[in-house]
């Protein structure tokens, strides 16, 4: 077990420095001494896969690995894990490359509401990692540290036993370790910041909001989008829009700039609405390159549904006769339910958003107020346009007729 550094006598409203790694990402924080590790993981680092139940060590919801051994994150003060390596459920597998334990829980229906699942996964990992020969009849006692109120445990035991039988030679390592940018949840989520220590905690969140860099996941993006639009405006006019970040953001459908953090770092919101679906991403953008004819943007945002989006976007404006050719090239990584939304549809939506962006930039370059301005509603239009687009691509007279009918009906609605 790693040994923490010494800490000078710290006042109750003071802060303690702590360094550890979580899922392969080094973390350095200053936090009040009484803040539990479970709270830090969820609030400071945005790792909400670690659930909180009883907060007194009974229910096991917050079980994570500390230096490879299952521990309760609610029974540790975060300052105590200085020097440790932590693994949370986020580190166990990727949405498209699950850990065998995750896959097995799904196959055996070892979860219903899912609240206990992170705890069960982490404690099962610890068990099978250290005792690969564990027998089925011992599983009930060995897994007794986590409570489940849905399944009656049988399916959980089936799931763990299945993995145990298949991996007697050794359980595969966690599959999703690596450098990530961890962003805490918004300080707005805090209620009643009355006493000083809470106010201090809130201050940490805002300070801690700007990481050194935004790190994109390795591997294939969820979607890649490459859109080229032709604008009527001259490249000089487009360059004016590019140079003005506030104006530029107004060209992004549903986007809103909430904070300028300096050095080309921005905090903002992006809202996407698709029919009944409402996503609101709070996040950061970092402009690596910001010139009048090109931009290189890294962005990351979390949605309240637990989804996360990360993107690398490059814009290039090239003079094209009297107008401008605007090229957007994006790699987008989605995690959470939004990822299961359907790759092709998500890609279509994103492509349509870039086209709307180009149109808005064109308007802004001509001195008009861009039409994409912060109203997310464009999203309904986006979805319809996306569907129409698909029909168009499918082609055919009948579909064209259907399209006209749909368009007519829509215009009636408007």
């Amino acid at each position, binding site marked *: *077990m790693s*040994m*923490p*550094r*010494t*800490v*000078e*006598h*710290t*006042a*109750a*409203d*003071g802060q*303690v420095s702590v360094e550890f790694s979580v899922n392969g990402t080094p973390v350095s924080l200053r936090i*009040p*001494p*009484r*803040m*539990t590790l479970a*709270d830090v993981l969820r609030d400071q680092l945005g790792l909400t896969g670690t659930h909180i139940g009883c*907060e*007194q*060590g*009974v229910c*096991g919801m917050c*079980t994570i690995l*500390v230096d490879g*051994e*299952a*521990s*309760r994150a*609610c*029974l*540790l*003060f975060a*300052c*105590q894990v200085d020097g440790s390596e932590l693994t949370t459920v986020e580190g166990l597998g990727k949405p498209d490359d699950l850990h065998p334990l995750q896959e097995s829980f799904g196959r055996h229906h070892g979860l219903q509401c899912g609240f206990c699942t992170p705890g069960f996964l982490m*404690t099962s990992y*610890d*068990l099978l990692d250290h005792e690969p020969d564990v027998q089925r009849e011992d599983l*009930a*006692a*060995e897994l*007794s*540290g*986590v409570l489940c109120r849905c399944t009656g445990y049988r399916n959980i035991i089936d799931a763990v036993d299945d993995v145990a039988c298949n991996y007697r030679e050794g359980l595969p390592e966690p599959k999703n370790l690596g450098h990530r940018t961890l962003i805490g949840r918004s300080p707005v989520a805090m209620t009643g910041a009355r*006493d000083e*220590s*809470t106010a201090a*905690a809130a201050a940490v969140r805002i300070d801690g909001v700007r990481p050194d860099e935004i790190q994109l996941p390795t591997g294939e993006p969820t979607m890649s989008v490459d859109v080229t639009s032709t604008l009527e405006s001259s490249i000089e006019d487009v360059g004016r829009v590019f140079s003005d970040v506030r104006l530029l953001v107004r060209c992004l459908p549903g986007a809103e700039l909430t904070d300028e953090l300096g050095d080309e770092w921005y905090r903002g919101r992006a809202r996407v609405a698709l029919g009944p679906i409402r996503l609101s991403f709070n996040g950061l953008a970092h402009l690596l390159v910001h010139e009048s004819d090109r931009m290189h943007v890294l962005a990351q945002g979390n949605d309240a549904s637990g989804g996360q989006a990360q993107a690398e976007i490059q814009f290039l404006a090239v003079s094209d006769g009297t107008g401008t050719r605007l090229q957007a090239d994006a790699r987008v990584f989605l995690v959470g339910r939004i990822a299961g939304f359907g790759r092709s549809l998500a890609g279509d939506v994103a492509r349509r958003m870039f086209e709307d962006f180009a149109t808005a930039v064109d308007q802004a370059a001509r001195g008009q107020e861009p039409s994409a301005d912060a109203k997310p509603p464009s999203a309904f239009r986006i979805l319809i346009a996306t569907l129409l687009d698909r029909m168009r691509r499918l082609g055919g007279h009948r579909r064209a007729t259907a399209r006209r009918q749909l368009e007519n009906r829509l215009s009636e609605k408007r």
Partner: protein
Amino acid sequence: MKPAPFEYVRPGSVDDVLSELGRDGAKVIAGGQSLVPILAMRLARPTTLVDINAIGDLGVLTSVSKGLHVGATVRQRAVQHDPTAARIPLLRMALPWVGHRELRSRGTVCGSLAHADSAAELPAVACCLDATITVASPRGERLVAASEFFVAAMTTSVQPDELVTSVHFPYATTNQGFGFAEIARRHGDFALAGVAVRVDARDPFRPTARVVCFGVSDKPVVRDVSAWLASAVATEGAETPEMTIRASLSDGSADLADDVVDTVGDAHGSTAYRRQLIAALSSRELARAYIRATQDQVETT
């Protein structure tokens, strides 16, 4: 953040810990697996938490003078899996019952002793084995026998300005046998009742035996049951079948239970129920420990 605000310090030496403990309202935290729930429920509001995890000397787990030296920050799980600890079978038998695996990874052996929960396993083990606890204070170090250590519920002879630095468990000798059992509502919860048993059967017709009961009073209750066991094996000695021993012991088991169980009981188990448990567990484990002592069997729970 559920605990009330507290000051925090993590010194690098025992001396620094002791000077911190000189302040009013200071409390030591090692693994914190018993302390943090109490803080979270705000049943305790120490002014300062003195974290002893940055002191290398306290993390030592080693073989010393025919026994195992367990430093104050050595985790229960580390002891459970340490090959040397296999020489103390009772410790090995009891540790899997201490909380859950997720708690043993952080919880310490010394912390469990210092916390002195009356339903905890390790205080009973320490009493059963005559463990010795080392306590440091600004006045120097003192050695405390387990029998002198536990005073009452969650109360030990450790003073507020003192620190438990280690515990020493003697290795088992040949002709010794052990038994351990507890009943809890779920594995890992505090015991409703439990027993730790030590038998020395150098002379199989006149064994010495000790039962330590936990969960049934405000501290572990130690009883010498040599005469009781001796009467059960008086005729056949080491040849006595286990079931015969159990049958003979069951006669006196109710008396033992009446004697040791003085808890008033709670929603999970009445006094009478706990007496029943102690009667059943003590006669069963005593018989098993005797068989292990005479037949050199490996201890299991």
